[in-house]
């Protein structure tokens, strides 16, 4: 009973992080519920073996990354023809559009910004799994190099390399897709 209550507390505390990280790593808004459920089920199964040597958030991030990687393997197996970024999928949804609303919107500027974000999200999904995971954990989740190294079981030097290389590749990919004037226009 104690474990069950403890587990529910963990779910409440970390569910937002799990959802947003999964969304960024997989780019699939439709499936994120199921994936998040899988994350917490894996955590529940592992709670007995959790020795407290790592922070629960680090442990959860590790499960999130594993679940996301399993999802990518599954997609590769299914030979999914094309990757749908979360932002491109839901741009027609009213709540998605509202989430970008600005108090004093310059329509064109807002549109460019939105397009830029979508491009970044889309190109992020085209990166390698490790680079994507490092970029998301470092920039979005604000994890330290040490934490990322622990989550991904990588040496810190490799984490730095993935971060640098990932950012470089992402930048190049985005630049080729976005017209220069649009980016500078901001």
């Amino acid at each position: 009973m104690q474990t069950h209550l403890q587990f529910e507390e963990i779910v409440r505390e970390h569910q937002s992080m799990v959802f947003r990280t999964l969304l960024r790593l997989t780019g699939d808004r439709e499936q994120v519920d199921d994936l998040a459920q899988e994350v917490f089920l894996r955590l529940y199964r592992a709670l007995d073996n959790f020795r407290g040597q790592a922070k629960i958030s680090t442990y959860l991030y590790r499960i999130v990354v594993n679940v996301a990687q399993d999802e990518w393997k599954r997609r590769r197996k299914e030979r999914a023809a094309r990757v749908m970024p979360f932002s491109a999928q839901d741009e027609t949804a009213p709540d998605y559009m509202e989430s970008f609303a600005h108090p004093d919107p310059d329509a064109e500027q807002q549109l460019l910004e939105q397009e830029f974000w979508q491009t970044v999200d889309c190109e992020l999904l085209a990166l390698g799994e490790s680079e994507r995971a490092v970029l998301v954990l470092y920039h979005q989740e604000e994890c330290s190099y040490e934490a990322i190294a622990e989550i991904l079981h990588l040496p810190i030097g490799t984490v730095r390399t993935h971060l640098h290389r990932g950012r470089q590749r992402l930048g190049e990919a985005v630049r080729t897709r976005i017209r220069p004037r649009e980016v500078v226009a901001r």
Partner: protein
Amino acid sequence: MNPEQNNQESLLIAALERRPEIAVPVDFHLRLRASLAEEPARRAARRVSFARTTAYVAAVCMAVALVVLTMLYPETIKVPESMTFVLELLLVAQLVAVGFWLGTHSEG
């Protein structure tokens, strides 16, 4: 890096730092709870550790062997004839202690 590249770089970082907005479904807890209910009753049934079981069995066998041998050859206990026998007894006692420690040592 020229100003344009700098601008692009900072825009890229800002885009990466932006957290996607996603609402956790209201019924997520219920779905999760339902899934947990379907989980096998693994918590009721304690996980059997192979190493721990082996250690218990070895310790018990060792203790039983010691008792049986003592009963079969009581004269050797009363009058230890050599240092070898004493050392053997010490070794057996140590192995029992190791077996007990392994058996009771928490994995967590």
